């Protein structure tokens, strides 16, 4: 029935000169519109198959020229702008700026204001870490923590809203102290939050800490040694997870931090899991600080003696605080007028992001997403 096969096949099975599978390096673009880059970060990846050979970050998509704006505003007018840098930790930004200008004026906020500042800043640290945890877990593939953390973060934002009327860009502090006295029931709200939140952290940990998928995705991923971290200027939980026990709240205490008892957690391996654990413990330590502060909040004025028109004497100052992401510094130069001559912001996210390249080399593409998440960057602060 079938025709007899009387022709020879002319299939050429010799190895072609060029292999079918191209083994060249591949350059791939990731972002700026990519859900796992937490905003508008663009990363150019150099790949060998799935292995990362190198990266280059392209940033600046969110650049608003905050430092230039500062030179054209008075000290007071610039205050709300700093909230828009790291917009998930606006309170910390405001604290750093207000303290820097106070230092330039050679004055200090009164004790009651300092306590209010500590309470709100630590609440904001928890809120920032919650947002980090939810999005970081989502990037890696665990969807549930996002809903848990956002549900609980709401309670903190409610306290902010009741205190100053805003949830995110709070502008909670003024140069010299705080503008608002605590509302009736503030202490009660904060204490209620502490009792509400303590079991919630256990809940997060129950979801993740022993989870096998989570361990596989985070252990030994994005490792950075303590020496490398210091050389790259990395600060905050990322530095501490690499075993360097350094926290500005202890090393060079500001606000009222010297009066509180708390621990600085550190990691050992400097991998993504350690950074996760450090931040989880930090949330618990923040609760400890808040508890001490809210129980010991002193009476007294909330504004120090600062002139209505702020005109610092000629000089320059650098002041930095431990923001949720690391060392947030302000270098301010005054020429004696009502406007700062120069304001330089030392952003923790910007400097930490530089370590991305070192941390992902040799890892897989999927790990890049995990490492961007674990660095906890906010592009508003990277680009300013």
């Amino acid at each position, binding site marked *: 029935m079938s025709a007899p096969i009387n022709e020879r096949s002319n299939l050429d099975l010799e190895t072609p000169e060029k292999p079918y599978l191209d083994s060249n390096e591949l350059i791939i673009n990731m972002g700026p519109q990519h859900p796992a880059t937490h905003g508008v970060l663009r990363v150019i990846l150099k790949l060998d198959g799935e292995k990362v050979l190198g990266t280059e970050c392209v*940033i600046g998509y969110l650049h608003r020229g905050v430092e230039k704006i500062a030179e054209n505003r008075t000290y007071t007018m610039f205050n709300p702008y700093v909230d828009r840098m790291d917009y998930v930790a606006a309170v910390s930004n405001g604290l750093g700026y207000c303290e820097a200008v106070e230092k330039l004026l050679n004055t200090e906020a009164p004790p009651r204001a300092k306590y209010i500042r500590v309470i709100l800043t630590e609440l904001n640290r928890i809120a920032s870490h919650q947002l980090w945890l939810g999005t970081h877990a989502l990037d890696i593939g665990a969807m549930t923590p996002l809903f848990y953390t956002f549900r609980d973060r709401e309670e903190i934002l409610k306290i902010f809203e009741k205190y100053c009327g805003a949830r995110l860009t709070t502008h909670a502090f003024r140069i010299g102290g705080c503008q608002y006295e605590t509302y009736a029931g503030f202490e009660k709200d904060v204490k209620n939050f502490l009792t509400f939140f303590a079991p919630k952290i256990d809940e997060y940990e129950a979801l993740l800490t022993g989870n096998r998928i989570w361990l596989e995705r985070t252990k030994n991923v994005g490792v950075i040694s303590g020496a490398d971290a210091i050389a790259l200027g990395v600060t905050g939980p990322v530095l501490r997870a690499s075993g360097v026990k350094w926290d500005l709240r202890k*090393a060079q205490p500001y606000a009222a931090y010297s009066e509180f008892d708390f621990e600085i957690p550190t990691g050992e391996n400097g991998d993504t899991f350690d950074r996760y654990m450090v931040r989880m413990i930090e949330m618990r330590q923040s609760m400890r600080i808040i508890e001490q502060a809210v129980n010991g909040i002193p009476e007294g004025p909330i504004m120090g003696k600062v002139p209505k028109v702020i005109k610092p004497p000629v000089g320059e100052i*650098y002041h930095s605080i431990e923001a949720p992401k690391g060392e947030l510094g302000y*270098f301010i130069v005054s020429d004696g007028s009502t406007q700062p001559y120069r304001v330089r912001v030392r952003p923790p996210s910007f400097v930490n992001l530089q370590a991305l390249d070192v941390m992902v080399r040799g890892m897989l593409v999927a790990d890049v997403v995990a490492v961007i998440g674990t660095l906890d960057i906010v592009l508003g602060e990277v680009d300013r």
Partner: protein
Amino acid sequence: MAEEVKTPAPPPPPQPQPAKTGPSGGPEGEQKPTAEKPAAAAPAAPAKPAAPAAKPAAPAKPAGPVPMPWTSPLVEKYKGQYGSGLDAQTYLGQNYLSVDRSLIPDILRLLRDEEQFDYCVDITAVHYPKREKQFDVVWILYSFPRNERVRVKTQIADGASLPSSVSIWPTANWLEREVYDMFGIQFDGHPDLKRILLPDGWKGYPLRKDYGILQQDKEWVQINLGIESGQ
């Protein structure tokens, strides 16, 4: 409101204080005529133990705190070595070294290698267009072992370059790129000196004082965004 009744101790403070916030605007208002006085008076009180020595000369001007000479073994050592190219001062408890441009490579390296300033916090610049040497470049350094900060400052003219410190602190890479992006200061030996926050083809250096706040690179905007400049 019911919550207030339950905890009688905390609520009283909030009660009087909201009332105070009104008057608290008042005292400030009173100070207004002498707005500069508090600023001057406050510094005088905690003027640091070192201050009284210079005070007799200073009080005529209510200029507030003044930079004082900074003495420490570190300063002694390098003053002996480099002499007049180096000036050490302290202002409001913060130490800084004003260093001649030619000594910058040596000083930065020595601070890291011999004085354990292992963490380069920040590199930035300040523009003074009326000066002959228009730029102050500032390195903010921190030492983990000493728990101490120091600032190194130098002045350079427009168009002059500085040695890159990427080989000393790798973190300087992006920081120097930002200084270049915003001020147009060149760093010799930098591995990849290009703009970082602004687009590659951008013209001008925004943090220079002669660059207006509304000014932008019209040509870049027209070509890349396809719109007339919005300003």
